């Protein structure tokens, strides 16, 4: 799942014939001035400025300003750029035309097991969240396209009538086409508004989640995905992502500030059980990590380096199930190299390391880990006969 910011999200919708307000995404005040000179609508109409970052509650943070004239928009751009919110620095502002309207509606398409649901409501904005029963749904099987009649029936069910029902059906049809054509997993327009004057339906705000796995058939996806948890990726996280994109198998790393138990487990399934075990034993996770699919030893070494660099950690959990084909000796070789490097940089003082693993060449790998004791590591090594998460129990008992 890949979240896409408003700018590129609206670009995709426009590609599929959905009306969106005119907008520009700028990363400096000078750039905005230049674009203002080139675009008539910026000089004449009322404008909206929003921080173009993966941030929740932008309105409350003062990162959405509406009803601006050109001077006001310039001021807003200047003020927002560089603002620090948690770990995010506002580096882009999206300025769009304000679309005069009265009524607000809601439209979305959501991936389901069978295919997709098209959702519409004849209320929008915050109103729809408190009136979820007014959202009506059309479920579609994968590979099928909703007919105009079915969409009009949906619009009527949702309380639209006359030409507006037809308009809403047309809008929902285009939204579905965009969803299907762009391999989206979730598209939400809230609000959809009827523009004063011509009454055309315009998408004012877009939430766009794409299927990152489908990127191979979308050469025009030239935008970056946004972090999904309300903060920017850290440099360490970006480093690991860069390694991940280069190798067979995968390495993953997410930092969780304030934790004291560092995770360095194998496998997408087991890693979460290890994280669960830490939380269940009252520990505080310092990160999430995972290596799987028999990755190169150097990739695991990079991951190890990042894990060892986490501040204030007391334990490192090198857990893993019994691998099918990940070479334990090879991947442990990467971890051991990372540990040695960290130790030489004075990073692992007072840190206990807990290992449990099985799989191809498990004996060689575990023996090599065990041998680290002689190099002064506080390391505790267990094989397949110790249940998966028992090392977490031992780690957290001892550190108390």
């Amino acid at each position, binding site marked *: 799942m890949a979240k896409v910011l408003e700018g590129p999200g609206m670009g995709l919708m426009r590609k599929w014939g959905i009306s969106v307000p005119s907008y520009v995404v700028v990363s400096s005040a000078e750039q905005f001035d230049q674009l203002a000179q080139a675009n008539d609508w910026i000089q004449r109409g009322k404008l909206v400025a929003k921080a173009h970052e993966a941030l929740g509650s932008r309105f409350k943070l003062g990162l959405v300003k509406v009803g601006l004239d050109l001077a006001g928009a310039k001021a807003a751009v200047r003020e927002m750029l560089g603002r620090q919110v948690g770990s995010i620095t506002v580096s882009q502002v999206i300025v769009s035309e304000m679309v005069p309207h009265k009524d607000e509606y809601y439209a979305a398409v959501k991936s389901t097991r*069978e295919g997709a649901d098209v959702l519409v409501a004849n209320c929008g904005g915050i109103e729809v969240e408190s009136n979820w029963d007014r959202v009506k749904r059309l479920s579609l099987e*994968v590979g099928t396209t909703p007919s105009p009649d079915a969409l009009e029936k949906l619009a009527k069910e949702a309380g639209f009538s006359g030409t507006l029902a037809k308009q809403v059906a047309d809008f929902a049809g285009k939204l579905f086409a965009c969803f299907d054509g762009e391999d989206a997993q979730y598209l939400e327009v809230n609000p959809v508004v009827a523009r004063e004057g011509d009454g055309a339906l315009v998408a004012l705000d877009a939430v766009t989640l794409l299927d990152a796995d489908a990127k191979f058939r979308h050469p025009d996806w030239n935008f970056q995905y946004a972090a999904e948890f*309300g903060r920017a990726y850290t440099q360490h996280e970006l480093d690991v992502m860069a390694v991940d994109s280069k190798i067979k198998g995968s390495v993953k790393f997410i930092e969780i500030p304030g934790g004291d138990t560092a995770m360095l487990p194998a496998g997408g*399934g*087991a890693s979460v059980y290890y994280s*669960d075990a830490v939380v269940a034993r009252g520990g505080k996770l310092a990160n999430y990590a995972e290596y799987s699919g028999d990755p190169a030893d150097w990739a695991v070494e990079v991951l190890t380096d990042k894990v060892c660099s986490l501040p204030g950690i007391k334990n490192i959990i090198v857990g893993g199930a019994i691998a099918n084909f990940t070479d334990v000796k090879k991947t442990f070789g990467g971890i051991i190299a990372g540990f040695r490097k960290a130790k030489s940089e004075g990073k692992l003082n007072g840190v206990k390391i807990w290992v449990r693993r099985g799989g191809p060449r498990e004996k060689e790998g575990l023996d090599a880990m065990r041998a680290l004791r002689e190099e002064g590591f506080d390391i505790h090594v267990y094989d397949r006969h110790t249940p998966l998460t028992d090392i977490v129990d031992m780690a957290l008992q001892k550190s108390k």
Partner: protein
Amino acid sequence: MSILANKDTHVVIQGGAAGLNAARRMAEFRYMIKQPLNVKAFVYPPDTGKMNEVTYGSGLLTIPVYKSVAEATSKHPEINTSLVYIGADRACAGGMEALNDPKIQLVSMITEGVPEKDAKLLARHAIKLGKTFNGPSSIGIISAGACRLGVIGGAFDNLVACKLYREGSFGVITKSGGLSNEIIWICSQFADGISTAIGIGGDAYPGTDYVTYLEKFEQDPQTKAVVIVGEMGGDLEERAAEWYGAKKRRVKLLAVVSGFCQESLPKGMKFGHAGAKEGMKGEGSARSKSDALKEAGAIVPDTFGALGPAIKQVYEDLVKSGQVRPIPELSPADVPKLPKTVEEGMKAGDVMVAPLIKTTISDDRGDEPCYDGYPASELINKGYEIPHVIGLLWDKRLISKQEAEIIKRIMMLSADHGPCVSAALTTIVAACAGIGLSQAVAAGLIMIGPRFGGAVTDAGRYFKYAVDNRMTVDDFLAHMKKNVGPVPGIGHRVKSVRNPDKRVKELVSYIKGLGIPAPHLDFALAVEKVTSAKKENLILNVDGTMAAVLVDIGFPVDSLNGFFILSRTIGLIGHWVDQKRQESRLIRLFDYLVNYAAPKRREVPPLK
């Protein structure tokens, strides 16, 4: 009995290297259960017509590669299952191709990173055709004692440790590949092992869900209990709970669900597989899944670690109620073993191998090469140079600083001699014809022989013969005239007494200046004195000088030509690179440089 994969499963593997690796793992399993390999064909268009090699026990099987699934199933009509190892961008088409083949009933997709829409299309198509589509991102399916599809179960030792050579009573369904193996292990330690274990893949929308497989397990008399390893996200676990709670089921259900850590993490942070994403308003959370399963009557231990004892409890109850009879363990002698490779056998001291070649100069088996026992890096760091490496590899000895200096000078003097000499000219002609470096240089080196640069060894041999036998110059020349012919190392095409070879003078005066004993050089110079008096160009040439000096410092006669070959290679490489840099064009000899002495043009007589 088992489900999905059994003794009658015959497989086509769609894909390249990963598919071949899977076939090898599957062959290990079949060897363990003493059954022939069930992989009948591969489909991989780039390798059409080739045969893939698969080790089976101590033998090697060859399995054909076809262009299409249809071709594979028409040649091997027993095929009923396809494993898809094709890249994510072509996986959908490959999966559809397999599903559309009338012979194929089960398609299991191992490919990871398949777009969600493609996975859904495949799943829908399979349902329409009444077939089973498993995956994507599936680690595989394994039925103990019968059939392995994919790499599930891991290495051979693990298959044996998990007693996968015979059926147990527990079915397993997991999203995670690694955990499938863990559960198989737990079932073999805490109970009697598994019947069938299925990896359904960790994607958001697996082609086949828990319920479909639970229904199949329910119909399989061998399976007495099923273990589900769930994850947060989606509603598959809830559906399984619904199925289990709907009516009295024959199989016992045990389950664990991961993702509780989500509750104490920043909102929106998601871990693990693609399918493990937090739903809206708590739906799809680990807690709601776990609660639903508990309410439906499933056994849901609080932690993964408690799963083993829970499985043990279920197993003991099954034994007590007579539903399961404990299986006697195999005696150690009967436990299946994979034949050892030669390397493993040697390591264990079980086999003796007669070596094919023997080396006495170098060893590459450590982290760096050792020359005559000395690590290359240590030689470098202690100040040794190229001539010392030559000494070690050509004469197995660490030569002195002075000897090294002599060799260095010899090499510098003979590194090149312009473009006109045989070797350089040949390399240049080759370079101009577009021939690559190694071939062009080799062509030049071929010119080194009795008439050009290759007289060093022979010169050394005869000078040594003379000195060893304390011959006088006259005796030596008579001996050579009678038995050999012209004296190697004496004589030059253009140089003479009046036009001396500066290289020879340089080397001779350096050696003389050192004041070291040089009996062979002295002898060679004495020979020159006599021969050059007879004829001006019968001087000691560079080959002869090098030979005498090298024999003086103790190099074996057979290595002597090597000094010229090695030195001149430097020049030949230079000539090749030089021509390349100039982008020289093809050259040919001008006909005015040829004396055409062939008969004049004449009429061909009628063929008789």
